[in-house]
């Protein structure tokens, strides 16, 4: 008797019902698009070629610089949190290639909907990293203008922004900026999210809406293996990119620590979206080398040997190996970037402490475009209350005006 046989109602043995419907996923393992090996060796892929124009070396050097500066933003912000200057920081350590590769594939007319960890993409959209610190310091909830660099506000509720991305893309369709054939005009949206968010209803609904309306969206999922303490196996029994087919659009898994592959794949997906061919899911397979945030302690739930394994795939080290081995860079290239990183660090350290404190009275002004009489009255009342104290600060206040 086969071990796959179970007793049926009439006492006979039949096949296990678990087998009746066939396999529960498409194949044994995913293919990973890779153009640069962990050792820094350039390889080709049959479907995705690197298209960096005439100045390929310069572009690759630019990627290196972007990744080093992005990592510096991250390490500097982490240090600022340790020094009590930030309440919390969401680290991106290890995800620089995924963010720079995808971020540099964007054109100015594209729009980005980030999570709260897209510091590298923000950098690509010319958002001053100081503006990012404001959110984590608690002086504001998003200090940049989303319409300036086409970079949306950080979204803390996991996955909510993917629907905003699809809606924005539906707006682009109605504005006639999709599929015109004019590269300066055609636009698309990138929705960033993580492996944890892939379980959210909003992400799945965004897939359905995007497919239904053929919206120009690239769903860029950074699968960093961990949703705080929960491993990817808790979110998905199949490789995430394979989910796309179930919604009716293509998915691809790319080496998320390979900036060249991330660039090439995102560029292809964006071109596809801009030309009016609809959504794509890009799963950037990477690893969160840091903690979820500065309040997290990964030693409670994952093995240090995992981290050591992924350190060998470090996105910056592999590009440095490539640049060095192929003689692409001048002698002072790396030192020059280190100098830049130092200056960026100083900008963040000095600038963070100088971020202006919000006024308690400022909260009343932006709730509505047309302020309600109720709120106006509350503001007047609160101002009078504050005024009733010497110096405008209630005794014992830790947050009022002048507390710093």
């Amino acid at each position, binding site marked *: 008797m086969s071990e796959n046989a179970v007793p049926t109602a009439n006492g006979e043995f039949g096949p296990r019902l678990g087998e009746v419907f066939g396999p529960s996923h498409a194949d044994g393992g995913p293919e990973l698009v890779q153009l640069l090996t962990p050792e820094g060796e350039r390889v080709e892929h049959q479907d995705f070629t690197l298209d960096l124009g005439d100045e390929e070396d310069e572009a690759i050097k630019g990627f290196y610089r972007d990744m080093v500066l992005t990592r510096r933003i991250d390490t500097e912000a982490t240090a600022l949190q340790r020094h009590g200057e930030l309440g919390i920081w969401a680290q991106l350590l290890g995800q620089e290639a995924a963010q720079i590769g995808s971020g540099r594939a964007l054109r100015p007319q594209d729009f980005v909907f980030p999570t709260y960890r897209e510091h590298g993409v923000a950098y690509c959209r010319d958002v001053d990293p100081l503006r990012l610190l404001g959110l984590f310091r608690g002086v504001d909830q998003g*200090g940049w203008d989303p319409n300036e660099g086409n970079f949306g*506000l950080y979204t803390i509720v996991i996955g*909510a922004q993917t629907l905003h991305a699809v809606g*924005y893309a539906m707006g682009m369709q109605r504005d006639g900026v999709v599929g015109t054939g004019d590269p300066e005009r055609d636009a698309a949206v990138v929705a960033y999210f993580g492996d944890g968010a892939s379980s959210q209803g*909003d992400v799945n609904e965004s897939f*359905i809406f995007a497919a239904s309306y053929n919206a120009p969206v690239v769903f860029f999922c950074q699968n960093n293996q961990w949703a705080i303490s929960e491993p990817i196996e808790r979110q998905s029994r199949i490789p995430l990119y394979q989910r796309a087919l179930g919604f009716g659009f293509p998915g691809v898994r790319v080496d998320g620590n390979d900036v060249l592959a991330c660039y090439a794949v995102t560029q292809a997906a964006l071109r596809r979206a801009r030309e009016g061919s609809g959504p794509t899911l890009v799963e950037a397979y990477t690893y969160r080398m840091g903690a979820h945030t500065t309040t997290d302690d990964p030693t409670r739930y994952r093995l240090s040997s995992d981290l050591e394994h992924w350190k060998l795939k470090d996105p910056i080290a592999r590009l440095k190996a490539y640049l060095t081995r192929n003689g692409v860079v001048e002698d002072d290239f790396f030192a020059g970037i280190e100098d830049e990183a130092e200056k960026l660090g100083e900008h963040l350290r000095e600038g963070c402490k100088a971020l202006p404190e919000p006024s308690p009275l400022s909260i009343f002004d*932006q709730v509505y475009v047309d302020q309600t009489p109720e709120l106006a009255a509350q503001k007047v009342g609160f101002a009078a209350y504050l005024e009733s104290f010497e110096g405008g600060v209630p005794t014992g206040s830790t947050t009022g005006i002048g507390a710093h």
Partner: protein
Amino acid sequence: MTRITLAKGLNAGLRAALEADPKVLIMGEDVGKLGGVFRITDGLQKDFGEDRVIDTPLAESGILGTAVGLAMRGYRPVCEIQFDGFVYPAYDQIVSQVAKIHFRSQGRIRMPLVIRIPFGGGIGAVEHHSESPEAQFAHTPGLKVVSCSNPVDGYWMIQQAIQSDDPIVFLEPKRQYHADKAELDETLQPEPLFSSRIVREGGDLTLLAYGPMVKTCLASAEAAAGEGRSIEVIDLRTLSPLDMGPVFASVRKTGRAVVAHEAHVNLGMGSEVAARITEECFYALEAPVLRVGGFDTPYPPSRIEEDYLPDLDRVLDAVDRSFAY
């Protein structure tokens, strides 16, 4: 001048809004070919096309979430939630995104969207089709909440809501959709959206209502008149912000107030209205402000919904209790 139902008034108002501004979109389940399950959007997709009157997948969070993105792109989406009890899958998008984005972005992003919700009971429906969730939205900073009670208000208020640059939850009393007709004169200037209105003058007691209860309260006032009591009825119309000026003036005149709604009494709109009247009109009051509403239970099976819903007698009972003080 035409005589119209609330359904026709809303339909005409939506049509006028679509004609006035090419950025206005309608989106929701069955709003296109079918014209909505209540036919409020009847004929609009035929005249304005599938890109402007959008049949969506059956996912309320998806409707509101994509509306946020469309609003960011400069559109003015009017989202139809098919029934009140189906709004909760969209609750996160409404409360955490729609309501907060203008604040979080320090005013850089506007959310000029309207969330239309047929609300209230009395149509003999199965569960989740008869609820009154207004307090949950009125309790959310960043949203504005209004409710029309009659065909003429439906026509004007939906257009005013669509013109608003702030997000508005627009509550439509579904049992009134096809009930009474009223004369619509499109040449008149409407009152401001965020204003309450005296709909029957009186001097002995102030009766406050909105949406489906306005009709009930007018009938109650008529019945009370037969007993020699002169009741002033105010249609609140706007629930967030509340327009309390006319209410305070009325209560200072009458000294008594009863507030009625279909929603549960506990922490309902009546609680806020009563608290504000007490704060502002304490010395004018001859009796505590009384509340009449649904009981603090889930909405019951439809065969007993008339027992659950506050009706003419329950309102008059509260009026009696007020006068007994």
